[in-house]
């Protein structure tokens, strides 16, 4: 670890905060349905969409109808994306003449993109046509992020409103988020990426003769546009299999900083916007600080563990001062790799510049813990906010009684119904991750997919289910996911992770919105100060540690101790 390394990390994070604050005001305006400086241009377009779809933008929906709209929209997205992949061989814009995508892979990929996961069991440059990439994957990069933020909007309204029957209009929220937030920033960012050297072309590939005289085919395509929304929408599905480690996707230090900035921007801004929406900036601040602590501690652990290197590498005669550089881009260095890794798993992005499989056991523990906790510091676009608020509800319930009142959060009483739904959402994670992992290690077909044995192999399997379930999409690699078993179960994990979480959240929103908002007093459980931050940290660490302690002990923890005694996997 170096001072300069930490300075770099601090500068990038400061940049995120400096831009997220003004953006939060803008997002809060979109949330409230207010006009902004883009309205003269975009408002007619927005109205056009409503007119085309027959949506009455003034009519709000109950949480039930909101959820129905969400499901209908997602089913439509799934079907169209599935069809696009299955028929890409007969559709235009397929310069490399790729075949139709196989059924189980198309199933997995479609779910992956509508759930904002972007788990990729394929290499983009060798599987997907340009049409599939642009009309399918890129479009869903926008829509899945917009959907996430829409759900968060509905949830925030539940806290902001008192005795309300409705939580907003799904169609309006998705349209406004896409039009006013995601598209404008993505367009600007894409142009900046182009300026910084990211390719943007419709050409298929070029054949070149390398310096050594060998022939090489280099894939090309509309990358800058996909990079922009990939990071901005916390999607993470790369154009290339190597993702952001590829020099086309992420050519230099500047694009790398921009990539980290872009993946943190909207999640951070939406937490601040949450404070604005409930009329108390301190509420958002307390949550943001908690998220920041979890994220930065993660960065620190990775940075420390990776810089320290391993005895094994030193024994091979490598310079121990460089630390563990296996699987890292030397262009970006230890500090930025640590920040990217923590941020991409702390959000639901899953883009990588570092192969997580190659991290030291403790370094790898951080991304694993981040995704096991559901990627909520600061989380995917929208998903992080509502995911974190559910955890906050549980924390407030457990500790809230200790002030001698029935628990309430933001003036809303947390009662049986809320606990039922919150626990339902919380239960999904261990059920899916531990359930499927437990089943996988019993199956020979599943174990055949493993690259590594022992605790490292276990980490690979758990990581895969945690990543898909948390809609992150990064891979620990080392695991061949493109088998019918993994395509199917990982697909299910993504579905559960998104919808079995979002639907209880919307039900929760409906119930909370209908409640009266109790005014705060000196007797109210304080949810703004350092005490609440400490409480949240304690509950989060204990809650997730208790769920995954045995699995982590048999995975990265034991691997670490084994590594110390000279065994590697």
């Amino acid at each position, binding site marked *: 670890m170096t001072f300069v390394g930490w300075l770099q990390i601090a500068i990038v994070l400061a940049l995120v905060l400096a831009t997220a604050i003004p953006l939060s005001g803008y997002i809060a305006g979109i949330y409230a349905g207010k006009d902004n400086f883009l309205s003269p241009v975009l408002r007619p377009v927005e109205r056009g969409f409503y007119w085309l779809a027959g949506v009455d933008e003034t009519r709000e929906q109950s949480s039930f109808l909101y959820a129905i709209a969400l499901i209908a929209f997602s089913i439509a997205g799934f079907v169209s994306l599935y069809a696009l992949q299955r028929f890409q061989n007969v559709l235009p814009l397929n310069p490399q003449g790729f075949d139709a995508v196989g059924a189980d892979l198309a199933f997995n990929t479609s779910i992956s993109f509508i759930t904002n996961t972007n788990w990729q069991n394929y290499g983009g440059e060798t599987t997907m046509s340009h049409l599939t990439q642009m009309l399918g994957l890129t479009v869903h990069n926008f829509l899945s992020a917009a959907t996430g933020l829409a759900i968060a909007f509905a949830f925030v309204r539940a806290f902001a409103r008192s005795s309300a029957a409705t939580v907003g209009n799904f169609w309006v929220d998705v349209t406004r988020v896409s039009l006013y937030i995601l598209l404008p920033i993505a367009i600007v960012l894409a142009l900046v990426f182009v300026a910084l050297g990211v390719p943007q072309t419709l050409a298929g590939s070029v054949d070149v003769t390398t310096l050594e005289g060998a022939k090489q085919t280099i894939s090309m395509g509309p990358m800058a546009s996909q990079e922009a929304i990939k990071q901005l929408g916390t999607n993470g599905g790369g154009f290339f299999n190597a993702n952001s480690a590829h020099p086309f996707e992420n050519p230099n230090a500047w694009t790398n900083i921009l990539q980290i900035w872009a993946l943190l921007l909207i999640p951070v801004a939406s937490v601040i916007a949450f404070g604005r929406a409930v009329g108390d900036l301190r509420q958002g601040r307390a949550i943001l600080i908690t998220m920041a602590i979890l994220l930065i501690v993660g960065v620190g652990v990775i940075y420390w563990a990776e810089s320290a290197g391993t005895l094994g590498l030193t024994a091979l005669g490598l310079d121990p001062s460089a630390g563990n550089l296996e699987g890292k881009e030397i262009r970006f260095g230890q500090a930025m790799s640590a920040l990217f890794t923590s941020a991409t798993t702390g959000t639901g992005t899953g883009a990588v510049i570092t192969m997580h499989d190659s991290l030291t056991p403790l370094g790898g523990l951080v991304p694993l813990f981040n995704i096991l906790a559901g990627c909520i510091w600061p989380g995917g676009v929208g998903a992080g906010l509502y995911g974190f608020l559910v955890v906050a509800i549980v924390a407030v319930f457990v500790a809230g009684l200790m002030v001698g009142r*029935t628990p309430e959060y933001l003036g809303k009483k947390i009662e049986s119904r809320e606990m039922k739904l919150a626990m339902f959402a919380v239960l999904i994670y261990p059920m899916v991750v531990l359930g499927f992992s437990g089943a996988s290690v019993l199956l020979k077909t599943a174990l055949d997919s493993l690259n590594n044995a022992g605790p490292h192999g276990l980490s690979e399997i758990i990581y895969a289910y945690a990543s898909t379930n948390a809609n992150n999409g990064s891979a620990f690699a080392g695991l061949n996911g493109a088998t019918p078993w993994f395509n199917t179960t990982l697909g299910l994990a993504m579905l559960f992770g998104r919808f079995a979480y979002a639907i209880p959240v919307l039900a929760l929103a409906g119930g909370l919105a209908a409640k009266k908002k109790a005014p705060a007093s000196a007797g109210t459980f304080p949810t703004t100060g350092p005490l609440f931050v400490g409480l949240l940290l304690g509950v989060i660490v204990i809650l997730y540690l208790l769920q995954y302690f*045995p699995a982590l*002990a048999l995975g990265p923890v034991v691997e670490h101790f084994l590594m110390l005694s000279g065994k590697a996997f």
Partner: protein
Amino acid sequence: MSTNAKAQGLFDPKIIRAAALDALRKLDPRKLAKNPVIFVTEAVSLVVTGFFIRDLITHESSPLFSGQIAFWLWFTVLFANFAEAVAEGRGKAQADALRKTRSDTRAKRYVDSKNLSEVIQPVNAQDLRVGDVVLVEAGDIIPGDGEIIEGVASVNESAITGESAPVIREAGGDRSAVTGGTTVLSDHIKVRITAAQGSTFIDRMIALVEGAERQKTPNELALSILLSGLTLIFLIVCVTLWPIAAYSGTVLSVTVLIALLVCLIPTTIGGLLSAIGVAGMDRLIRFNVIATSGRAVEAAGDVDTLLLDKTGTITFGNRMADEFIPVAGVTERALAEAALIASLADETPEGRSIVALAKSRYEIAAPSLPPEATVVEFTAQTRISGLDMPGRVLRKGAVDAILAQSATTGTAAPMRNSGGAGVLVRQATIGDLAPADFRQAVDRISRSGGTPLAVSDSGRLLGVIHLKDIVKPDIRPRFAELRAMGIKTVMVTGDNPITAAAIASEAGVDDFLAQATPEDKLAYIRREQQGGRLIAMCGDGTNDAPALAQADVGVAMQTGTQAAREAGNMVDLDSDPTKLIEIVGIGKQLLMTRGSLTTFSIANDVAKYFAIIPALFVTTYPELGALNIMGLSSDKSAILSAVIFNALIIIALIPLALKGVAYRPVGAASLLRRNLLIYGLGGVIVPFIGIKIIDVLISALHLA
């Protein structure tokens, strides 16, 4: 009842014996199903017992180990049952005392309840129906809850209140309700029965203290859901650990997996949850307040606004002399002495307070009433009272009345012809006749909400007595406490706004409702509730009933009417409106105890993991021994120690669950800081120490 209840210690051996038996009885899975955490524990205890028997027969693995695990798992269940039984046992003892009053009472029923002539038919109290009218004479036990329709009697209500001083009950007004089981001491009354047998006040009290009608309260339900959710999560963790361990090269036995499961699921709070609820009710009953449901006790903890009647709660209820203000040329002492003599025969509270003040402040010895003196009684017409003694005519009374009298008989002020009548003249009289300092004093007293009482001696105006509503001396700091807790206090009074404002500011309440009618109260409650606040109030009159019903916590006075007692969700047997403040405290303490023990229970799991996980895998991965930070002696001892700690902590926490965690009237932030430190951080640390100690003992005894 209350007296012997208070004498009952936390661990009365009689109750402990009964509770130990009850704990066994509660093993019935149909009863345990209500408590999912303990139910799961019982189910897996059964499984481990099966393995123990197998081990005994086949010696497949050590029966000493599985036997001990089974033993302690059963004890975990028993300890949880015991906690509940102890809490209930304390209620049962009270219920038995109550039940005695109900047995075979005879009633004198009028054959025709419309025509209360002398045709009386003796019947068994059990056969009375609602609407029947009975005659109750001196010495009789009142056969059922009802309303006096004729007569007045003194009634001994000690059966329910524990207070042996008789109370007066009379037809009409706010004191017409009588309770079955109480005894008429004098006179006779005719009572219309208003509650069917089995649903009388005493019946309900018995059911409540016994916990027979106990249903889970809303917050208990929500907490149970959390606990069930955690139980499910840990079931998933333990079930999936088997394949994951198998992959890692360790085949785990069902016994150790179950041991891990029981250690992880929140057995501590699961076992103590209902005991905490019963104990909360019990604390209220000891405090002589009966809540009709646990829900009401919880609501008390949540209260945001307290509606307090001024009289009796904030002030002593009677106006009392506070100050003597003489006119120029008269000493305070002379005024005090005159006032004292004028009040010698005055037995009203005001009169006595004048005597008391004069005695205490000026150390004037009260002369006995001279035999030749004539007492002038206060009447509504004259508004003056006093004493005629030879050579001295002492008077005290309303200012205008005294002045008017001085004007006609007096010698002090310049005379003026005051022809005509009415307000104008009276004002002119005061204004013109009285000295300026006197007028100022009267004005000041009126403005501050007090009552001025003028004193004259043989027609000469001496000065004025300041009578005021004396605010209870200890009430102001209590309101400050309530404010620190975030509770708003509202004073309700029939006084005019000026008087009300003066008393409100002196008592330090946050708001007041002056010239309040029952409708105003109801409207105020509705308005506050509209803003999301929870309201508590107390009342006794029939016209309080709607407000009592509307309030989230409505405390009816035992002396109140039947309607009020039906409308409220608590009844205060001592009829002390000040108790509202303590009731809030009891509600808060109940919730805090629940929250603290939940936090403690969950925090405990960290240490148990550190004990068990290295023990489970140490054969495959000796390197995991690094996690054995407690340095436990062997893997079996580690698992056993965690299980034993898990069982014993329930017993250790029973006194805390019953007594409740320490409660202080401070703001939420400092409560949270304190409790998080004790029960959160303590919950993480304590089991590390406890498990280590048990491990040392186990290895010393060679049990594992």
